[in-house]
């Protein structure tokens, strides 16, 4: 039941994504890509999840804990870096007139 509901969301979003992206002109492909790249850092939510729920699972050892922290670090680099670099690029598009 839950699975089919998640698959529905997935399928609909893929179609929505196709619709949205085909309208983006070639001029904006690079910022689109770095912006969407930042959005793929949404795994940050999962990283926060596994880091905070350590205690729920009791003693799971230090190893998964370190991996969770690294995941959060990587996801943050992806998100923050991606949005900042897109912003820098878009500023250049806007800069003239």
């Amino acid at each position, binding site marked *: 039941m*839950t699975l089919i509901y998640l698959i529905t*969301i*997935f399928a609909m*979003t*893929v*179609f929505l*994504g196709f619709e*949205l*992206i085909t309208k*983006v*002109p070639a*001029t*904006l*492909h*690079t*910022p*689109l*890509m*770095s*912006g*969407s*790249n*930042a*959005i*793929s*850092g*949404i*795994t*940050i*939510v*999962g*990283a*926060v*999840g*596994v880091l*905070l729920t*350590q*205690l729920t*699972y*009791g003693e799971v050892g230090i190893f*998964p804990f370190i*991996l969770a*922290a*690294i995941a*959060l*670090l*990587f*996801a*943050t*680099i992806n998100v*923050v870096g*991606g*949005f900042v*670099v*897109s912003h820098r*690029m878009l*500023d*250049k598009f*806007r800069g*003239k007139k």
Partner: protein
Amino acid sequence: MDYTLLANAKDVIVALFYLVSAILFVLGIKNLSKPKTAPRGNMLGAAGMLVAFLTALVDFGVVVDPASETITTQFQYWYILLAAIILGSFIGVYSAIKVKMTGMPQMVAIFNGFGGAASFLVAGVFYSFEIAVGNTLGVPLLIATFLSGLIGAVTFTGSFIAYAKLQGLKIIPDKPLVFKGDLAFKGLLLVVLLVLGGLMIVNSTMPIYYWLVVLGGFILGVFLVIGIGGADMPVVISLLNSYSGIAAAATGFVLGNTVLIIAGSLVGASGIILTLIMCKAMNRSLLNVFFGGFGGSKSTEQTDDIYEGKVTSTNADEVAMILETAQRVAIVPGYGMAVARAATAVRQLTDQLEKANIEVIFGIHPVAGRMPGHMNVLLAEENIAYEKLLDLETINPTFDKTDIVIVIGANDVVNPVAREANSPISGMPILDVDKARSVVVIKRSLSPGFAGIPNPLFAKDNTLMLFGDGKQAVEDIIKAYKEL
């Protein structure tokens, strides 16, 4: 207090806020489709991410337990969380500010790699937890975990190899590295990975198989990208971008989290579309990019026949003179312009010509540069208005009304051979610069481009070759033009 009600209320509120962030992502991408609204689009995306992050803190940090009638918070390790966020933000901002616009593709590649890594780590840690507390995962969940590990790992190493290639690191050659039995090796690796996936599902309490899948994914990522040449980088970057989204979506299935699925599949779809656009612009299939070994150096045999005695060489003074009589000038830049750091000079020339009421436009081929739309960013950095940057379909019908085309640092994308059969680039859409009244090609030598084939355009009657460094050549033209 009714704790069951409270627990339900928390779940609903959390779900609603995840929905808000998903809507912000959709609006963000929608706004990114117009130059005017694009900065807002990026901001909306960032806002969506902030909402998602804060919601995650409540989602996982606040536990309402109806059985024991307690509300507990799980921020005991808040300092680790804070440290990771601060360090990650610092690294992200620092590298984003430092990077030059020419280095944008490798920057995106590396951020992408981090995203992929985060996905397989999260899925792996979650899987270990579930096993540690004795939960058994169903087959669909195990498949999602497998995919998250595999795709995340491929994205991670693939992106770093792409980074090394784009950055020109000596350890990895820019030329495709293809060895004997390369295809068989990749095929075998894929079979091994599928077997490991099967073992993972059968022995669902042994996380070791998951980490073996990740290891195999690392190796696959390396070999998928290492065999691809520099000219195909726009395709690879787009595809890796798509993978990072798909990995995030797979992780969303593992965690049962909707916002991961929505954001991940949006990015996955976006990457796939860009990949297809890039493939179409090179008239090649995705399979051909990965297994074709394009950009190898063969078929240079009739080079002499094509060029012998037919190439007209020119100098800056002559170019300045014909520019003076022109009414419409089109500039076709390739990645070579960026390499020669000639963009500033090109803009100065544009300014000069426009002062004399000469119309100047730019023809941008979809694969000019090292990632989709890269050339537009490089020219935008020089304050060249995006209205002047015309894409292939727009500029091609206007070349016969164009007096002079200046081709700078581009080769294969203006090669008329593409219109004929039996060449490595047959069918590839090109900029029809040979239809203009005259063509000036600024280039160091007659050496071939990535496709490794001669370009008959250079030998045409109406083509003038201006040999030399791109930046120097354009500066010489400006100087000669001012002295007229």
